[in-house]
């Protein structure tokens, strides 16, 4: 009987694609592979391959910056959150991503770009030496292949639903396409595809938002339907604060603290400022000015994307019968992760359907490509070149990069099957970020502003921080701590941050720091101010290109949206 229900539900999830939808999908992939082939012509050194020769304009890197993250994580995860928790999900953007992106552009980018490092771990190498470098290089490489697997799995799910291919075949085919364009064109091909994918995703989400709202009777209709469906929790779903349903923390004050400190300060700052998959996009910009503007330009679309991703999730939970029933506790064979697919099925006609399918596939592929293209850089520069085969000619590392890209895709196929065991992909990802990024952010912050911090402190802080995040997670999974929702990852990240700082300070006090002369360009107080400044003449001139002005603008917009959805 149970089996029967599931078969029925699976059949219902199938999107009714017509030949024209496949044609639109085909057009996109011709362009994607074409870009890979064209970009190959501009790859003549390893720097071309890994950082696109540091040649890209700010609007391209800015859109790629947010697109690299606009994979399975956001599309499935955030619509799922929207369907389940409602408005509090906005915190991921307006408390989390935006302030963090501003901080990256204003404070941290000058160090990254100015010190000419080629990756985030390489910054650690320069600042703290080999121990911290190796810890981070290895943990980052591991995290990226895991997350690439999540994206790959999401992609395979869509292909499976759409074409009815078995999951394993979809996984392999998708991995081969990503491999084709990233190993041909390197980062430039990945970045260009990310920008294209950004526009296709927006083209997919806009009609879902507007037609969805039209169908439920506008915003008021949505509010009325959510209130009618779940009278007890409607106000939690319709107000951003204190967001107790999102955090799973029963006390309003602690919940706000969890969101502001755990999600906002630690988790998001950690993710957006130290995750190389993002920062790599800014590093590939053509000048210091463009590098600083990259996250700031990206922040504007990011602010509004929250609306066209989370609101469709909320609409799906009242408009799609199966999902509405699931929310009432019935087993209908769908989960929150299906929200976006169900909405596409119920709203879009053939034609637009093809573009929506294209957008989904492109997003998951671009997400995976971002993971793979940052993995191959860190593996080649930070592990292979630093510890295994030093001092080879540049062509050698270019070749290694291409081979490692293939290996990364292979491992991702394996991790895709790990991801298939988690119901809410977002929980899984947040957990991973907590383990790796939160302590890294603590170490960066302390290391950039406290010259006394020692090499040993850098390495031990990272290990202690990651270990404490894992401890919190294990305690919660074994019911020692009781945190439902996503509060567990906020708490794990906060613990990692605090422990990292504490251990780093203690270890620094009893070990010997690096001499000041080796820290120029890496620590705030020892870096000449003009080394952190950028050229503001020529194509970098104009008030609207000033990082400060861009940052202030996006913060004002974010604050306004925060107040509107209070």
């Amino acid at each position, binding site marked *: 009987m149970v089996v029967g229900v599931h078969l029925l539900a699976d059949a219902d999830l199938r999107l009714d694609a017509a030949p024209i939808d496949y044609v639109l999908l085909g057009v996109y992939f011709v362009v994607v592979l074409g870009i890979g082939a064209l970009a190959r012509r501009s790859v003549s050194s390893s720097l*071309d391959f890994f950082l696109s020769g540091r040649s890209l304009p700010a609007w391209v890197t800015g859109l790629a910056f947010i697109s690299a993250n606009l994979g399975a994580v956001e599309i499935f995860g955030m619509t799922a959150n929207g369907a389940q928790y409602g408005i509090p999900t906005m915190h991921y953007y307006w408390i989390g991503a935006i302030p963090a992106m501003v901080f990256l552009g204003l404070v941290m980018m000058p160090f990254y770009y100015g010190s000419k490092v080629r990756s985030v771990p390489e910054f650690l190498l320069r600042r703290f030496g080999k121990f911290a470098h190796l810890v981070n290089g290895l943990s980052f490489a591991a995290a990226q292949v895991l997350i690439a697997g999540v994206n790959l799995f999401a992609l395979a799910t869509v292909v499976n639903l759409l074409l009815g291919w078995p999951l394993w075949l979809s996984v392999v085919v998708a991995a081969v396409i990503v491999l084709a364009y990233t190993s041909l064109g390197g980062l430039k091909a990945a970045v260009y595809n990310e920008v294209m994918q950004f526009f296709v995703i927006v083209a997919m989400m806009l009609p879902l938002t507007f037609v969805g709202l039209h169908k439920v009777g506008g915003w008021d209709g949505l509010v009325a339907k959510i209130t009618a469906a779940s009278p007890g929790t409607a106000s939690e779903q319709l107000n951003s604060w204190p967001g107790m349903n999102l955090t799973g923390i029963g006390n309003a004050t602690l919940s706000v603290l969890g969101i502001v400190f755990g999600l906002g300060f630690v988790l998001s700052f950690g993710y957006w400022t130290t995750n190389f998959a993002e920062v790599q996009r800014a590093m590939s910009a053509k000048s210091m000015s463009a590098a600083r503007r990259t996250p700031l330009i990206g922040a504007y679309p990011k602010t509004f994307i929250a609306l066209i991703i989370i609101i469709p999730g909320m609409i799906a939970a009242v408009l799609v019968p199966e999902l509405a029933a699931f929310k009432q506790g019935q087993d209908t064979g769908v989960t929150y992760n299906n929200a976006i697919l169900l909405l596409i099925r119920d709203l*879009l006609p053939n*034609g637009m359907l093809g573009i929506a399918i294209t957008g989904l596939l492109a997003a998951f592929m671009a997400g995976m490509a971002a993971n793979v293209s940052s993995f191959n850089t860190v593996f080649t520069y930070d592990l292979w070149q630093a510890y295994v085969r030093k001092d080879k000619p540049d062509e050698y590392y270019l070749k290694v990069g291409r081979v490692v890209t293939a290996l990364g895709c292979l491992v991702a196929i394996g991790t895709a099957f790990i991801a298939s065991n988690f119901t809410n992909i977002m929980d899984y990802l947040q957990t991973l970020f907590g383990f790796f990024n939160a302590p890294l952010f603590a170490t960066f912050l302390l290391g950039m502003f406290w010259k006394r911090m020692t090499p040993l402190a850098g390495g031990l802080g990272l290990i202690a921080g990651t270990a404490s995040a894992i401890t919190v997670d294990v305690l919660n999974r074994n019911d020692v701590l009781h945190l439902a929702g996503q509060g567990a990852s906020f708490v794990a990240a906060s613990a990692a941050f605090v422990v990292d700082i504490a251990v780093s300070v203690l270890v620094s006090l009893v070990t010997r720091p690096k001499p000041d002369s080796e820290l120029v360009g890496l620590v705030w107080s020892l870096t000449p101010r003009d080394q952190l400044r950028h050229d503001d003449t020529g194509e970098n001139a104009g008030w609207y290109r000033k990082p400060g002005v861009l940052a202030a603008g996006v913060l004002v917009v974010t604050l306004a949206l925060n107040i509107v959805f209070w």
Partner: protein
Amino acid sequence: MAEKRAAGLFDLRGVLALLFAVYGFVLTVLGVAFTTQADLDKAAGVNVNLWMGLGMLAVALLFALWVRLRPLTVPEGEQPEQSERDA
């Protein structure tokens, strides 16, 4: 410097204009000529293909205009890039 010339031939804005022109055209045709009552009922009366098609044509036009008004030029300051590569 064949590398620079290759970059000049390959302007992302042009690719975007082309992609959305094709998509916009197809959707507009579908919206005008092939929209069924069932499609309209799905979307509570909105002709999704038509509106999105017209929107995409507009986006394509904007990208084309941008390329036209600010053509890609080979940057004069190639020096910084070189010095970075040496670093």
